[in-house]
């Protein structure tokens, strides 16, 4: 999709012959007046209350490098350097809470500032101004799109990475006692998460040498028959590894699902709540939890 736009842009810019020397004239104009234009741009960014998350000096520093990259992209017509810079910039500013509209806004502001300076310079020669703008506008638009797309892509990548991290975190396998694991599950279970859950549990059983596992699904409101079936398979696979699984906190809806899909319930070890499940697991492991006061009272002397 993006490739297409880029290609069509590239074609449109190379289509107008004679725009080459106009562009170079344009570039040298922008180079000569760079200090003034950059300041003007930074001032307008502040005025428009964009990039409020950044300090004045930072804005000016970024404005300088964006400006240089911008002029260079205009001159060479290649976007690679600008693309890389946009990606890098996005990486730095996304964590600081800079929004998409701000990034698009500042690039459009720069476009406006430069266009204004062109108006001012060629105001006497309307025809030349027209031709200069013909050369300038497609290139400037292309640059604006590149920066905006780069920002959005970086944002999407960040979101994807975070989703991955959340998924990893969403199925913790915790050891609460020697040889006893608990696996609290909260939220919706889709097939992907179910698979990941099984993998982590079976691996956890091996690495922690667990004998009993309590899977608590109090936080799962409902599950479809596919996931319920997967849960049953997980219980059986754990048994093959020599671990007993206790499932706790089945909601009425989930019980209904399990009964509907005709699971052999004799294989499922279920207890009402997590506390009951842990107590049952301790019993299986041979632990007995006694309050210290009772233990002292029971001791003779």
């Amino acid at each position: 999709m993006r490739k297409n736009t880029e290609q069509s842009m590239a074609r449109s810019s190379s289509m107008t012959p004679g725009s080459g020397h106009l562009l170079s004239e344009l570039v040298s104009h922008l180079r000569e007046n760079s200090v003034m234009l950059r300041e003007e741009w930074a001032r307008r960014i502040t005025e428009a209350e964009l990039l409020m998350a950044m300090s004045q000096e930072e804005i000016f520093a970024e404005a300088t490098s964006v400006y240089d990259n911008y002029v260079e992209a205009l001159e060479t017509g290649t976007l690679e350097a600008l693309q890389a810079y946009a990606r890098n910039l996005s990486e730095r500013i996304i964590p600081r809470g800079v929004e998409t509209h701000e990034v698009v806004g500042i690039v459009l502001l720069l476009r406006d500032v430069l266009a204004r300076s062109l108006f001012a310079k060629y105001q006497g020669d309307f025809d030349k101004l027209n031709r200069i703008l013909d050369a300038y506008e497609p290139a400037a638009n292309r640059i604006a799109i590149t920066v905006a797309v780069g920002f959005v892509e970086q944002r999407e990548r960040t979101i994807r990475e975070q989703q991955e991290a959340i998924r990893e975190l969403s199925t913790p396998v915790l050891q609460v006692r020697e040889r006893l694991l608990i696996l609290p599950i909260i939220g919706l279970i889709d097939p992907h998460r179910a698979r990941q859950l099984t993998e982590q549990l079976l691996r956890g059983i091996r690495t922690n040498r667990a004998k009993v596992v309590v899977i608590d699904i109090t936080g799962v409101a409902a599950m479809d028959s596919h996931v319920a079936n997967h849960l049953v398979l997980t219980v059986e696979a754990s048994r093959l590894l020599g671990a007993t699984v206790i499932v706790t906190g089945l909601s009425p809806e989930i019980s209904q699902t399990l009964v509907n899909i005709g699971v052999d319930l004799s294989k499922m070890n279920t207890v009402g709540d997590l506390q009951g499940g842990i107590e049952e697991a301790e019993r299986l492991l041979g632990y007995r939890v006694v309050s210290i006061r009772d233990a002292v009272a029971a001791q003779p002397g």
Partner: protein
Amino acid sequence: MQVPILKQGPYLIASIQSALSDADLMQLRDALVRKVSTFRSRGVIVDVTVLDVMDSFASRTLNDLVHMIRLRGADTVIVGIQPEVAFAMVQLGLTMEGVATALDLEEGLEFLDQKLKHKGTGPRDG
């Protein structure tokens, strides 16, 4: 590839060293069933740690082995099934009903010790 069968106190330990053909598996089954009475063993451990595939024939043979040995008066425990293998097995419906399983050799020995204690004979005294 023959599977070595080691005698350890009242138990026999069959430790599979590589992937087995169907014939190897049947040979293992017959050898174990025979040796249980030769050594008057009380328990058998089959270690399948190295197997990364367990097809229906293998699990059926192991299943048969367990039940045959039970008929000859000893308990069997299968140890060391890999997590991936375990999940593949249950997906194929090979749940090994009624077969004792344990994480590894140590767990298997402990399981058999417990079992013998329940029966009233002290462990490893035979």
